C-alpha cells in the first residue's frame, strides 16, 4: 500500500517534461493509450481506403480510378493482402488492446499505471515502426506483399521484396504485442487495488486479461514461423519449400524437403486465437456500456467470466478448422470439428447473457448504447454464419469463397468495430474532458450499421453461388457467377456510403475541441467502475487517483434495492455517504 500512496507524487515530476517526453516518449499509460488510439484509427482509415479502391475495381473492372489509373492484378493483390494485414494487426488489435486496454485497465483496477511503464512505451514504438515498415513496403520495387494476409508459402516464399518487408513488419508488431501482453498480465495480477478481488474486476478487465494470455501464448509460434519464412527468402533454406518446385524462372534452386502445410499450422495457431483477440475486448466494451445504460448489473456475470476463460482455452485447439480442405486427414479433421462445435457454446452464453441483461432495465439510449446494441445482432450473424464453416462437409463447398469473407467481416466489422465505436463514445469524455454531439453520433451509428450490412450481406449470397475470394476481376471470368455479380455495384456504393457516414464522426471529434464542450462532471455516465468514480479530474491527471481507491463491492451495483441511491460505485464504503475508508486512511 505504501508504494501506491507515494507513487502519484513521484509521478508529478514528469509534468515538467518537454513535449517529446510528454506526448511521444511518454510512460503514462493514458498517453500511450491515446497514442495507440490515434495511430490505430489512422490505419483503420487507410485500410478502409485500400478497400474502397478494390471495391471500385470489383464494381467496374478495368475502369480507371482518378489519379491512380486502372487497377492491375498486381495492385489489386497488394491492396488485398495489405487491407487484411492493416485492419487486423495495425487497426483493430491496437485499438482494442493497445488503446482501450492501456487507457482503461489500470483505471478500472485502481492502479496508478501499468506494471512496466517503459515496456509499455517500447510496446507502442515497436507497433509504430512495424506500421511504418508495412507502409514503406508499398514503395519498394514491385510493391507491397501480395500473397494474401495469410502469406501461404510456397507463393509467399517466392514473392517479391514486399513480402520480406511484410515479415519484418510482422516481427515488430508481434514483439509489440508480446511486450504488451506481459505488461497486462502483470498489471492485472499485481496492481489491483485493495479490495479489488478477481470477481470484482469489471468484465472489460476480464476480457483484456484473457486476451493478454491469448497474445502471449499464440504469437510466439507465428514470430518463429515469420523468422523461418525470412530464412527461406533470405538464406535459401527450405522450411516451407518441398523439393522439385518449378517457377517462371525454372526449377527452384533450393534443397527442398520442407512443407508448405507447416506454415499453415503455425499461422493458424496464432490466427485463430487472434480472432478472439479481436472479439473479446469488443465483448468487454459492450458489457461495460450495457451495464451502465441498462442501470443494472450484468446478468450471469460469473457465468460470463467462466465462458470467457473457457473461450480463451478452447481457442488454442480449433485452429485447423481453417484447413479442412488441405487433405490433412479425416481423424484430425474430426477432432477440430468437435472442438469448433464446442467453442460456439461459450459465445452463445455471453451473447445471451448480454441480451438478458436488457430485461428489467431502465435503458438509456445513449450513443455508446446504440453501438453496443448494434453489436449484438451483428456478432450474432457473424457467429451463426460461422457454424457451417466449422463443419467440414459444409465448409468444403464454402471454403475460400465470398461466404467466408462475409462471415468474418460480420464478426470483425459490424461486430468488433461497432463495439470499438461504442468504446470511443463511452470513454471519450474521460479521455479528453470534452463531450461528443449526440445527433452526429446517432447519424454515424445508423449510417454505419446500415451501410455495413449492405456491403457484407450480399457477400454471403455471392459465396453460396461459388464466387471465390481474391479475384481481381471479382469473378467476371466465371460465367456462372453472373447473376450474383450485379450485387457488386450495390456493395461498392454501400462501401462509399460507409465512408461518407464516417464524416459525422470525424466532424464530431473536431467539434469537441470547442470550449463549450467541456465535461461538467467527472462521472459523466454515472458509472460504478473506478475509471469513472474514483478519478476526480477529466482528463485524468498523471498518477490517476488523488488517493488510491479502496474497493468494497462488485463492479455493477446499479439501482441496488434499498440503497436509496441510483448506483453504488465500487469505491463507495458500505452504508455511508461520507468519505470512504480509503480517504480516512490517507488523511490519518
Amino acid at each position: 500500500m505504501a508504494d501506491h500512496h507515494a507513487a502519484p507524487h513521484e509521478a508529478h515530476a514528469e509534468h515538467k517534461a518537454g513535449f517529446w517526453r510528454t506526448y511521444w516518449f511518454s510512460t503514462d499509460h493514458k498517453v500511450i493509450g491515446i497514442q495507440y488510439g490515434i495511430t490505430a484509427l489512422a490505419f483503420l482509415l487507410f485500410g478502409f481506403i485500400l478497400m474502397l479502391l478494390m471495391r471500385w475495381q470489383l464494381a467496374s473492372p478495368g475502369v480507371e480510378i482518378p489519379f491512380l489509373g486502372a487497377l492491375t492484378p498486381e495492385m489489386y493483390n497488394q491492396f488485398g493482402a495489405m487491407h487484411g494485414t492493416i485492419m487486423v494487426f495495425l487497426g483493430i488489435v491496437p485499438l482494442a488492446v493497445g488503446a482501450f486496454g492501456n487507457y482503461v485497465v489500470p483505471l478500472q483496477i485502481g492502479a496508478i499505471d501499468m506494471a512496466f511503464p517503459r515496456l509499455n512505451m517500447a510496446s507502442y514504438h515497436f507497433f509504430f515502426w512495424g506500421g511504418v515498415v508495412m507502409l514503406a513496403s508499398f514503395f519498394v520495387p514491385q510493391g507491397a506483399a501480395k500473397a494474401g494476409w495469410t502469406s501461404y508459402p510456397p507463393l509467399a516464399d517466392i514473392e517479391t521484396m514486399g513480402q520480406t518487408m511484410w515479415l519484418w513488419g510482422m516481427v515488430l508488431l508481434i514483439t509489440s504485442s508480446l511486450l504488451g501482453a506481459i505488461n497486462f498480465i502483470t498489471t492485472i495480477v499485481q496492481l489491483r487495488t485493495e479490495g479489488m478481488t478477481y470477481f470484482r474486476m469489471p468484465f472489460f478487465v476480464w476480457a483484456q486479461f484473457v486476451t493478454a494470455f491469448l497474445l502471449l501464448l499464440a504469437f510466439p509460434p507465428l514470430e518463429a514461423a515469420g523468422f523461418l519464412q525470412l530464412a527461406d527468402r533470405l538464406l535459401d533454406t527450405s522450411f516451407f519449400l518441398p523439393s522439385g518446385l518449378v517457377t517462371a524462372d525454372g526449377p527452384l534452386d533450393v534443397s527442398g524437403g520442407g512443407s508448405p502445410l507447416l506454415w499453415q499450422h503455425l499461422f493458424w495457431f496464432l490466427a485463430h486465437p487472434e480472432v478472439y483477440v479481436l472479439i473479446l475486448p469488443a465483448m468487454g466494451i459492450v458489457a461495460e456500456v450495457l451495464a451502465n445504460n441498462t442501470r443494472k448489473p450484468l446478468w450471469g456475470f460469473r457465468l460470463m467470466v467462466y465462458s470467457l476463460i473457457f473461450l480463451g482455452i478452447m481457442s488454442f485447439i480449433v485452429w485447423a478448422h481453417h484447413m479442412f480442405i488441405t487433405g490433412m486427414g479425416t481423424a484430425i479433421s474430426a477432432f477440430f470439428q468437435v472442438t469448433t462445435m464446442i467453442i460456439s457454446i461459450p459465445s452463445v452464453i455471453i451473447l445471451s447473457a448480454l441480451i438478458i441483461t436488457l430485461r428489467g432495465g431502465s435503458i438509456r439510449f445513449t450513443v455508446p448504447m446504440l453501438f453496443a446494441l448494434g453489436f449484438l445482432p451483428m456478432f450474432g450473424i457473424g457467429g451463426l454464419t460461422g457454424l457451417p464453416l466449422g463443419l467440414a462437409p459444409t465448409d468444403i463447398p464454402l471454403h475460400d469463397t465470398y461466404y467466408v469473407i462475409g462471415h468474418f467481416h460480420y464478426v470483425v466489422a459490424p461486430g468488433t468495430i461497432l463495439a470499438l465505436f461504442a468504446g470511443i463514445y463511452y470513454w471519450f469524455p474521460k479521455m479528453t474532458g470534452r463531450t461528443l454531439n449526440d445527433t452526429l453520433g446517432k447519424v454515424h451509428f445508423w449510417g454505419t450499421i446500415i451501410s455495413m450490412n449492405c456491403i457484407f450481406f450480399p457477400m454471403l449470397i455471392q459465396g453460396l453461388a461459388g464466387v471465390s475470394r481474391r479475384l481481381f476481376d471479382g469473378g467476371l471470368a466465371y460465367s456462372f457467377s453472373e447473376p450474383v455479380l450485379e450485387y457488386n455495384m450495390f456493395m461498392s456504393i454501400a462501401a462509399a456510403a460507409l465512408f461518407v457516414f464516417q464524416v459525422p464522426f470525424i466532424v464530431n471529434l473536431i467539434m469537441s475541441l470547442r470550449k463549450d464542450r467541456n465535461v461538467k462532471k467527472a462521472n459523466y455516465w454515472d458509472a460504478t467502475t473506478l475509471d469513472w468514480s474514483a478519478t476526480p479530474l477529466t482528463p485524468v491527471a498523471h498518477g490517476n487517483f488523488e488517493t488510491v481507491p479502496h474497493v468494497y463491492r462488485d463492479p455493477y451495483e446499479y439501482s441496488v434495492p434499498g440503497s436509496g441511491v441510483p448506483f453504488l460505485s465500487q469505491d463507495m464504503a458500505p452504508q455511508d455517504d461520507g468519505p470512504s475508508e480509503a480517504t480516512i486512511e490517507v488523511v490519518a
Partner: protein
Amino acid sequence: MMEDKQALWLPEAASTYAGSVDSLFYFILVTSVILFVGVVTTMVVFAWRFRRRSAADRPVPVKENKVIEASWILVPFILVTIVFIWGFRVFITMSVAPPNAMEITVRAQKWSWLFEYPEGVRSNALHVPVGRPVKLKMSSADVLHSLYIPAFRTKQDVIPGRYTYAWFEATRQDTFPLMCTEYCGQQHSTMLSSVVVHSQDGFEAWLQESQLGTDASPAERGEALYTQLGCLACHSLDGTPGIGPSFEGLAATERAFTDGTRAVADDNYLREAIVAPAVRIVEGYDALMPATYATLEPEEVDALVAFIQEH
C-alpha cells in the same frame, strides 16, 4: 430464369453427395435463422419495453436463474451434437472414394490445369463419365492451388510436394465450371476450366477421339498438345492478346524483346520460347510462363513448333 434461381443459393447439385451436403447446410441455415429472429426479437422487445421513461425510472431487479443458465448451455450443446454427428457421416462419404473409382491424375501449375486419363490421354478440361465414381490424384508444380467444382460441392487443395485426393460421382450430363480457389498469384482469377460430364459411351468415344493415331502429322499432334497442355489458357489462336502473345501469324515475324534485342520467330526461336521461356520476353508481356515445359519429350516440342509454324 432457371439460372437466376440457382444463383441465389447453392448452385444446382450434380454429384451423388451434393444433396446430403446441401440438406445439412439448409438445416443449419434454417435453425440459425429461427434462432437469430428469436434472439433479435427478444432484444428489441426488451430494449423497447424497458426503455427509460423518466429520470426517476428504476430497473426491475432480475434474479439470476440457474435453470435458464443451464438451458443456455444444454440447448446449443444438443444442437451442435446433432449437426456434428450428421455432418460427420456426410464428411466420411465425401472423404473416402469408393474402391471402384476411376483414377484421373491432375496437375496444377500457374495458371492452368492438366488432366491425365488411364489411357494416356491428356486434356485441360476435366472429362468424366456420368454415374461412375472418379477419383482425382492431384499435385502442383509450383504453389498452392485448390480444385473447386461448385456444382459437385467438391473442393480440395492441391499442394506441391505431396499428392492430395478428391472424388465425386457426377449425376447429370452437362458442362460445369471448375476453378482454382486458393490464391496462387497474379493471374489466379483466370485459372478457370470446366468439367464435361459425358454419358458412359460418350466418354469412351471421347477417349478414342483424343488418342492420336500413329498417322497424325507433327502439326496435328501439336494442335492436340496445344489444347491438352493448356497453352490456350494464355496464347490465343485468333490474335487476341492474352497473358502471352497470340499464336496467330506469329511464325516468321520479327519479335521485339524487353531487353532491346530483336529476332525472327524461326524454328529455333520457337523451341527456345517453349523450353526456356524466361530467356527472352516479348515486349509488352511479363515473364510469367512456367518453366515446366522444359520437361516435354523432344517429339512433343517438335510437334508444337510445327503447329505454331503452320498456324
